[in-house]
């Protein structure tokens, strides 16, 4: 397989061009899955080294309970399925596991699915978010009706 550092390769490419060309070349040459492991999706992490499994417990916060309740209501109303819920989670950026909590990822997926299902529009969401933010800075203030 020709490599990008092959002295006979075409000159005067930027490193980005070279990388893209090599990826395309590798993709076209790939015959088996292990020839092109970069195509593995980030969430499909079964079998990877993961270190010890945390066993600590915590009480659920009001926010977490509300997100869970919202999800159950959406499933009960048939607004979307658990499959669509998971699909949006999997389509998040690879660092979402590090940068977002479990229920933050849930509410993000829930929102995407509700917009996709036409339950509310992005403009309606923006207006509601502004109303909630105007109530106050704390969770208690923002939660008030």
């Amino acid at each position, binding site marked *: 397989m020709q490599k990008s550092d092959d002295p006979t390769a075409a000159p005067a490419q930027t490193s980005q061009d070279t990388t893209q060309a090599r990826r395309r070349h590798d993709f076209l040459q790939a015959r*088996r*899955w*292990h020839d*092109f492991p970069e*195509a*593995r*999706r980030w969430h*499909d992490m*079964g*079998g990877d080294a993961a270190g010890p499994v945390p066993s600590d417990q915590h009480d659920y916060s009001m926010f977490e309970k509300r997100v869970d309740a919202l999800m159950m209501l959406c499933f009960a109303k048939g607004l*979307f*399925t658990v*499959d*669509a819920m*998971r*699909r949006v989670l*999997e389509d998040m950026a690879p660092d979402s596991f590090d940068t977002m909590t479990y229920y933050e990822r849930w509410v993000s997926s829930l929102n995407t699915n509700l917009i*996709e*299902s036409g339950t509310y529009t992005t403009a309606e969401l923006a207006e509601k978010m502004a109303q909630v933010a105007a109530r106050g800075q704390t969770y208690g203030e923002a939660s008030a009706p």
Partner: protein
Amino acid sequence: MTQRSPVKVRVKPLIPPGHVRTPYYLRGKVGEIERTLGPFPNPEDLAYNHSGKPLPLYRVRFSMAEVWGPDAENSTDTIDAEIYAHWLEPAENAP
């Protein structure tokens, strides 16, 4: 009555994008059908809000040696995975 020999199948070595339920670490691996389940709607379609054509789901048994090769701690231990029909192909001649 003779016992039927187990049906060997290979998990297709494909890596498409999308809502794929077939674990990456089993793709290309050969196992034996342990039992047939379903049919169940295909989650690859349900995830995009399509109705999802019902497909047979197979419980496939793999040896740890097949899955992890020399890295397997107990090579004769097995792992079962439930895999939809369209991800499996016959592997009669597999060892």
